[in-house]
């Protein structure tokens, strides 16, 4: 296989099982025989019915969970716990309420031992990138949900990770803010092309963002199909209103519809 120049951003999931064994309850097989390879600099979206193991997959990639079977490799080394090479963005912004916006963005850097003044400089650059430099001195509760989520993303970008892992980062936002945010994310991503794994329930969002869309099937979670998305970049939001775009969305929807119905107890 021909590996690109920037090996650091490569993710390889090799035949992974993840079984939860809750106390006094039956084990839950969240993922089974999962194989996935993400190229350095690639933007991959993961969709699937609720409970199909998307968040679990992301936690495995970050190193917060350890596979029950199989291996996960990030760059050239196996994943053995969280690392600042990979940054995670959750659906809830999880900003520290007691830190100002700039200190929140500097958080990962100061944890890594960087001096506060330097970390703040780096943080300010990220805030400019997400258009929030003016809010640097505010506390998170003084911001809107969309602004907080931008701060959350800036915090992840600030540690300059090889890999950005996002778990439904825009799910709590209204539809308009969400569209703008996904366009913004693409713009930011295009500046330095980090590897991105992005989870969403919104199929059109996935198709708009991704180079490839990974469709997970549920119970047990495994890769159902990987759908390539070859639209040119940069992509306009109007792409979403085109026929080829709609065809891909329909195809992905047909793959997961059965399971979504199943998970709702319909048929």
């Amino acid at each position: 296989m021909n590996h690109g120049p920037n090996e650091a951003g490569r993710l390889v999931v090799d035949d992974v099982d993840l079984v939860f064994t809750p106390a006094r309850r039956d084990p839950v097989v969240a993922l089974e025989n999962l194989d996935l390879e993400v190229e350095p600099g690639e933007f991959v979206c993961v969709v699937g019915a609720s409970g199909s193991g998307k968040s679990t997959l992301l936690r495995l990639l970050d190193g917060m969970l350890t596979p029950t079977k199989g291996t996960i490799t990030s760059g050239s080394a196996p994943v053995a716990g969280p690392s600042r090479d990979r940054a995670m963005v959750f659906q809830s912004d999880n900003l520290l309420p007691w830190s100002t916006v700039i200190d929140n963005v500097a958080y990962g850097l100061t944890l890594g031992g960087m001096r506060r003044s330097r970390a703040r400089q780096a943080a300010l650059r990220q805030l400019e990138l997400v258009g929030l430099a003016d809010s640097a001195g505010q506390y998170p509760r003084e911001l809107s949900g969309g602004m907080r989520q931008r701060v959350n993303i800036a915090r992840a970008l600030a540690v300059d990770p090889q890999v950005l892992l996002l778990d439904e980062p825009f799910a709590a936002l209204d539809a308009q803010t969400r569209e703008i945010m996904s366009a913004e994310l693409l713009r930011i991503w295009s500046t330095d092309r980090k590897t991105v794994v992005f989870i969403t329930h919104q199929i059109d969002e996935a198709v708009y963002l991704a180079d490839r869309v990974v469709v997970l099937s549920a119970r047990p979670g495994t890769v159902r199909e990987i759908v390539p998305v070859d639209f040119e970049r940069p992509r306009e939001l109007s792409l979403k209103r085109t026929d080829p775009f709609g065809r891909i969305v329909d195809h992905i929807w047909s793959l997961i519809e059965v399971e979504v119905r199943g998970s709702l107890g319909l048929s």
Partner: protein
Amino acid sequence: MSRGTKRGGFLAWLGGPTRGASWSRLVLSIGLFLVAWQVAAMYLVDNRLLLVPFTEVAAALVDEIADGAFASNLYTTVLELAIAFPLAVFGGFVIGAILAGSKPVRQTLDPILTAMYSLPIVALAPLFTAGLGFGVASKVAIVILMAIFPVITNTDAGLRSAEPALIETARSYGASRLQVLRTVTIPHSVPFIISGVRVAFARGLVGVIVAEFFGAVSGVGFAIAAAAQSYQTARLLGYVVVLGLIGLLASIGLTALERRLAPWREES
């Protein structure tokens, strides 16, 4: 920024966030209270053992100050609090932190702590006076016992209630256990601890006064008991007013401390 320039502007300013406004509110509410007191004492209550006009109370207080008795009584009570209260806060914090850190210890001690917290500890005041004498020691013991439990409980609760999502986020950024403590758990617990300290001070004040009732040679509580025995209502109420002022000062001080230590909670 809106300034109180138009009609009704004064009320808007008074409800505003400025320092001047908050002092004005304080002066205004004390003034209203004193007027209400004066009116009640002159026209509503004619039992002079129960209530005398504020002006007489003030006069009695001035006599007491001129006499030198006031300073020595106040000194005793403040000294007792100054020794006992910091010990209670520090001890409560340490014990609370131990409880938060160890589930077995917490589960073992919980019933005892709950019982002790709800116990009217002032009931032990006569015992402490008998055992530790009429001096400062018996008061310090009571104040510590009264004040320590709210600090223990709130420290424990504060340290254990940080959002798991925030802890997980810290960990995903590679935070060590110590870093999680320093950047998440402890900041989260600050407001809890301060409100524990608030309750602790109120309880400590009750403790010191009641302990002085039961046996002391000096102190605010001692002076109140003495005034009551000789039916000097004005003098008694004078000391009660001073207790009110101590409580008020403590509350203002704690609010200022909270602003400093937990600025993120301040209403904008």
